[in-house]
């Protein structure tokens, strides 16, 4: 066992962990159930969280490595996410929802890095987020509509 300290969703946290505990399992055991496991080979993007603001795969990071860093999960970004996810809901593109948290987290990262992305930039940035239900097109429409509404200073869909 070893001790780590990190910031989880803005709150400092100290925990005892096994050295090979993955961040994904650490986060779920700390109540962040939005973080999902979809594969065991770093291929699906379901477990995406932000480390110091950058999207990473929590299935592939030792919790020990997160020591001293700031981790954000969707639990900690509810307000920022609510602004945009309503547009995905309007498309019905949430579907089974299992990939949604990872997709939402990476989209937030995209929008922080490129506030006005083109379709190709959206597809490129989110290429590591697999979705088997939606066929991706509805996610793209939702993001486009969100950007459009933001440009117009439009209404909040996140209710």
């Amino acid at each position, binding site marked *: 066992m070893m001790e780590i300290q990190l910031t989880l969703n803005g709150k400092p946290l100290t925990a005892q962990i096994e*050295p*090979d505990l993955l961040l994904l399992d650490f986060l779920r055991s700390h109540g962040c159930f939005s973080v999902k496991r979809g594969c065991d080979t*770093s291929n699906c993007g379901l477990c*995406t969280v932000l480390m110091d603001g950058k999207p990473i*795969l929590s299935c*592939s990071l*030792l919790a*020990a490595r997160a020591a001293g860093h700031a981790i954000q999960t969707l639990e900690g970004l509810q307000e920022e996410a609510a602004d945009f996810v309503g547009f995905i809901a309007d498309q019905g593109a949430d579907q089974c929802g299992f990939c949604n948290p990872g997709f939402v987290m990476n989209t937030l990262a995209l929008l922080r890095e490129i506030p006005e992305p083109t379709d190709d930039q959206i597809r*490129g940035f989110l290429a590591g987020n697999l979705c088997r239900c939606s066929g991706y097109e509805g996610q793209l429409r939702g993001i486009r509509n969100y950007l459009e509404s933001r440009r117009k200073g439009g209404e909040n869909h996140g209710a």
Partner: protein
Amino acid sequence: MIQIQKYVQAESLEQAYQLNQKRSARILGGMLWLRLSRGSVGTAIDLCRLGLDTIEETQDAFILGAMATLRQLERHPGLNAYTHGAAARAVQDIVGVQFRNMATVGGSVWGRFGFSDVLTFLLSLDTAVELYHGGRVPLEEFARRKPDADILTRIHIRKTPGRFAYQALRVQRTDLPALTCALSQIEGETRAVIGARPGRALVIRDAPGILRDGITEESARAFGAYVARQTPTGSNLRGSAAYRSHLAEILTRRCALEAGGQNV
């Protein structure tokens, strides 16, 4: 999933080196491939606190810390200006942004993976690796060595003006490649690097001087055929040896034409 008994963030390279002399020790890169192995690691050594996570540009070189990520490589303005965007093209189809935020340049090079886009790309440049004990070693030589207990700390790319191109074929867009191809012309020397053969990337120089008199449709075609003849290929899930040999020819030709279109 690999099991780890103990995890240490090294305070110094010397400490990391000492810890790494045990057979059961392992230096952590991005851990993306390491975690797929089934074995057990005694001490996992993390270099994350040693300031090796930057890409520096000097007058005549780029110095990539071993812990710099593929995403940093992809987005580095200087490196991409120098390579005409080949750096970004070499890595941008690797899984996804999240993966590339974690995968390290050092880990990719140390692993000497057959499928590596990074190794293919770096071999086309004037690249040397810096080992904690072994000092600087040309990448081409390093790539042939077996992994040992030394530590890769940095990668040096000499900024000699040249022409560069990168192409790979992936059946699914973010999958491991069926073949990779990088091409460079530096100080009058043309090299093609073919990776994912599926064996480790190989450097093929234009010994016969096929492109010496310029890159034309015809000379590019001849060079592609030459490179394909020089490249041993094998079969796996992503393609047969015959298909790879064919791709080596096509991608080399396309790279040559792409590089030929650049003004240096």
